[in-house]
């Protein structure tokens, strides 16, 4: 089939690009975690390290995918995705990384798994995201929150 040429003038795209730049000014982090008791800890860590960050929370991969799709369609993907590995539903945090990991400027995993088992689970073809072993402490969470400060500089 012959390639079709786009029949739409491109000038209107500038308007859309401008909207995207504004959207990028807002830094958002997605936390994919079914243990909601960790919410205050993460909120405190980000408040300390980077108060400008807005946190979104999902408890399953499907919920996370909807949020990622929404942010992407607004031209403002998440700055950082922090995901537990074992979540509600069939899909795991590793599935989320394999599907959408490349879009997050930073991606981190949180789990109770020993590091050796985590490394075995990961396909190393595309690198291995930062791993944080549970139980979480404020200090550990702040180290992850620091990732947003680095990419902001």
């Amino acid at each position, binding site marked *: *089939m012959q*390639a*079709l*040429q*786009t*029949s*739409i*003038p*491109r*000038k*209107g*795209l500038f*308007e*859309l690009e401008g909207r995207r730049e504004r959207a990028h000014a807002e830094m958002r982090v997605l936390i994919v975690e079914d243990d909601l008791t960790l919410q205050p800890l993460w909120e405190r860590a980000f408040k300390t390290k980077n108060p400008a960050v807005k946190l979104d929370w999902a408890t399953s991969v499907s919920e996370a995918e909807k949020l990622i*799709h929404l942010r*992407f*369609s607004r*031209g403002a993907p998440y700055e950082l995705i922090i995901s537990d590995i074992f979540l509600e539903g069939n899909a795991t945090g590793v*599935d989320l990384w*394999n*599907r*959408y*990991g*490349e*879009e997050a400027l930073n991606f981190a995993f949180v789990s109770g798994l020993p590091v050796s088992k985590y490394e075995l689970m990961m396909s190393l073809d*595309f690198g291995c995201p930062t791993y944080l072993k549970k139980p979480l402490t404020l200090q550990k969470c702040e180290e992850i929150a620091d990732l947003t400060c680095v990419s902001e500089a």
Partner: protein
Amino acid sequence: MAYVPGVQVNANKAALALAEFDEFMKKLYAGAEEFVQRTPIDSSLTVDVERIKDGFKVAFKLASAELRLAESGEGRSPFMALERVLLKAKDLVKVWSINKKV
């Protein structure tokens, strides 16, 4: 497999060698359905999915009396390639829609 009127998908399961093929196809049909709802009623959309060197490419070709477009997105995963082509194609439809009203 889902059927969406006006949408033809060319994706070879064996050639793509994708573990999550069925999950991807669900998302592709859902995205394509949402997309064609924004286009003229006589639109027909062809979606080609292929493996490329560093991942996957998803290409949209839309044809109708009023609107024609061809866009593609690439990504390490087909899910991201799909997000990228959807974003580009929706932007073109928005621009067409704005220009049509002027």
